[in-house]
Structures are given as structure tokens and as C-alpha cells.
């Protein structure tokens, strides 16, 4: 999610909250008559006249369809935006353009990290964060992973990506991040049982 979308979501939530609170306070004041001098009986005649007029269905449908389309676009924006798929290298010249497929790079980095045996089910993807390309590797700590091996493996993986791009000079800086969760197996931590008969 981008920062703009998060701000928009929070703003929408605040507006919804204000509308709910204001409507609720109005209903409470209608009953208790503490602040406003509201009539005891609700009359919807004026609104009813507008709703039953010839222009109302067209205006209502027009405004609502626009809102619906905006709502649909808003929902789609929450599905997540992939990061840059390619980055151009500064070593491009008149003989040719050099680009790196970041998706493939993320997959290869994930594969290499998994091959160390300290991490399982690693998946790599790219995201754009604050103008930088982030190669994000998500996986699970191996059930019996050694801490030193894990630090070495993740450090080497991050270093390799960093060094590769330092030399290649991409158009946007590329960094690598590793996010690890608990071991996937439900039997994590249990001892292997061997029967000798």
C-alpha cells in the first residue's frame, strides 16, 4: 500500500466516523431535547417530493454510478501494486540498453537463500519503497536452524544483491530485505522418534 492510499483510507474512516457520531448525537438530541429544538415528529414530505420528481432517478443514478466506479477503483488499489519489474543500468550506452529483470532476481535470491538449508519456503518479490527498489524475501526459519548459519546465510544473500547492484549502477537504488516467520511445520521443536526393535 502506498502512503497516499493509507492517508486516503484513514481520511475516509474519519469522515465515516464523524458522520456516524453526528447522526447518532442528532438522534439522541431528538429524543432528549438537550440542545436543538427539533420537532417531535419526523416529516419526510419535502424529501419525498424530490425523490418522486422526474429528474431524481437520473441524478441519483449518475452520482451513485460515479461513486461506485470510484469505490471499485479504490478496492482495486488495495490489491497491491507490484514494484518495478525492471531497472535500467547506468552502463547502458549507444550500443545497447542494459536492464535487469527484478522479478527474476528476487526469485533467484529466494532460491539461493533456501538452498542454505536454514530457511524454508522463501518467496521473493520486489516493492517500491520511498523511491527505492526493495527486493523482499519472505520465508520461514528452518525447524532446527542454527542461529550463526542463519545470520551468515541471510547476510551473504543481502550482500550479494547489494554488491551486484553497486557494480551495475541501476537507475534506482536496490536493497534487499529478509523477513522470516516461525517454522512452518506444526511439529516444530518436537524430537524425531526412532523405534529400535
Amino acid at each position, binding site marked *: 500500500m502506498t502512503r497516499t492510499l493509507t492517508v486516503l483510507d484513514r481520511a475516509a474512516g474519519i469522515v465515516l466516523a464523524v458522520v456516524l457520531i453526528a447522526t447518532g448525537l442528532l438522534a439522541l438530541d431528538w429524543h432528549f431535547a438537550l440542545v436543538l429544538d427539533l420537532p417531535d415528529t419526523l416529516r419526510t414530505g419535502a424529501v419525498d417530493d424530490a425523490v418522486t420528481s422526474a429528474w431524481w432517478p437520473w441524478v441519483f443514478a449518475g452520482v451513485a454510478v460515479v461513486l*461506485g466506479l470510484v*469505490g471499485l477503483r479504490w478496492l482495486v488499489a488495495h490489491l497491491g501494486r507490484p514494484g518495478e519489474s525492471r531497472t535500467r543500468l547506468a552502463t547502458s550506452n549507444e550500443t545497447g540498453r542494459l536492464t535487469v529483470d527484478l522479478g527474476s532476481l528476487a526469485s533467484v535470491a529466494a532460491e539461493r537463500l533456501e538452498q542454505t538449508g536454514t530457511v524454508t519456503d522463501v518467496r521473493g518479490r520486489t516493492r517500491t519503497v520511498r523511491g527505492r527498489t526493495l527486493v523482499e524475501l519472505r520465508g520461514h526459519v528452518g525447524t532446527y536452524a*542454527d542461529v550463526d548459519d542463519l545470520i551468515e546465510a*541471510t547476510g551473504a544473500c543481502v550482500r550479494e544483491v547489494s554488491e551486484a547492484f553497486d557494480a551495475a549502477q541501476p537507475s534506482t537504488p536496490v536493497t534487499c530485505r529478509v523477513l*522470516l516467520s516461525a517454522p512452518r511445520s506444526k511439529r516444530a521443536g518436537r524430537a524425531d522418534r526412532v523405534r529400535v526393535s
Partner: protein
Amino acid sequence: MKNVARIVPRARPAAAGLAALVAVLWIALAVVAVRELAVDQGWATGSPWLPAVLDALDGRTADVLAAVVGGVLVLLGLITLYLALKPGRVTHLSTTTEADLWLTRGALAALAHAVVDRQPGVVSVHAETTRRRVRVHVVARDDRGGLEQRVRAALGERLGPLTRQRVDVDVTEVAR
């Protein structure tokens, strides 16, 4: 430019759910509005809903139900306000390694578990992690060999390069 390594991984904030709800309500409103237009123009059979709703509201008095509905709306509004402002949950803990490495509480607990589980004399281990500390409960045969010190030393040595979390060890002895 802010260093990417300092950006804490967070879950999607609750405001995203509220936004999705508002978006779905707008889409539903569009469907209702198009239906009202279709019924009004005779493109579809049925009767319009909006005038019926207004007729149902017409003549309502400021009774107890209005106060109850008002109270519920205020409560819902306050909950909505809280959810709109609530930051997304931090999903991973930072580490002290050179690499941009982050671990969930479960991952850190699993690593602590693996470290302690390899110590001689340990019968069973339960490790859990909070935001600031790692708690390790060890069941051991006996503590005569200084198991608690060995466990503390092993955890300090192995987890030290990984995290600054405080480590608490609790050893329960069972008869041999």
C-alpha cells in the same frame, strides 16, 4: 530520503478494512440507484425502494428507539474513529545483524528453542517472545551441572549477535 532499513514491516492498518467497507457501500449504492432508475423508466418491473423507505420514516416520533439507535451510532462512530487512527500492527522484530533481517516473534522463539533444546540435561523447552524479551521455560532432569547458567550462556552467545531482546530463563527440575 529515509533509509529503507528503518521502515518497520507492518500489517495492513484497520483503516484499509474501513475503506474497503466504504467502497463496497458506494458500489451497493450505485446498484440500488441504477435499479431505481430502471424501475422508474419501466425498464424493469417492481416498485421503487426509496419512497417506501421515506414513507416508513415519515411520522416517526422521538421515542426510545430513536435514542437507542442514536447511542448505537455514536458507539459505532467512536469504534470507527479508533480503527481509522490505529496504526498497523508491527509484524516483525528488528535484528542487530548487518543484513536488513527481520524476525517474527515466533521465529525468534523457534531459534531460542533450538539453542536450548541442544543442551544436555534438557527434557523439554517452551520458548515465547514478547516485544521486549524472550522467555524460555526449561524442564530439566536436575540442575546440579549448572544447567541454568549453561542455558543462559548459550542463549547469550547465540542470540546475542541477532537481537537485543532481554532473555529470561526459567528452569523446572524433575526427578531423575
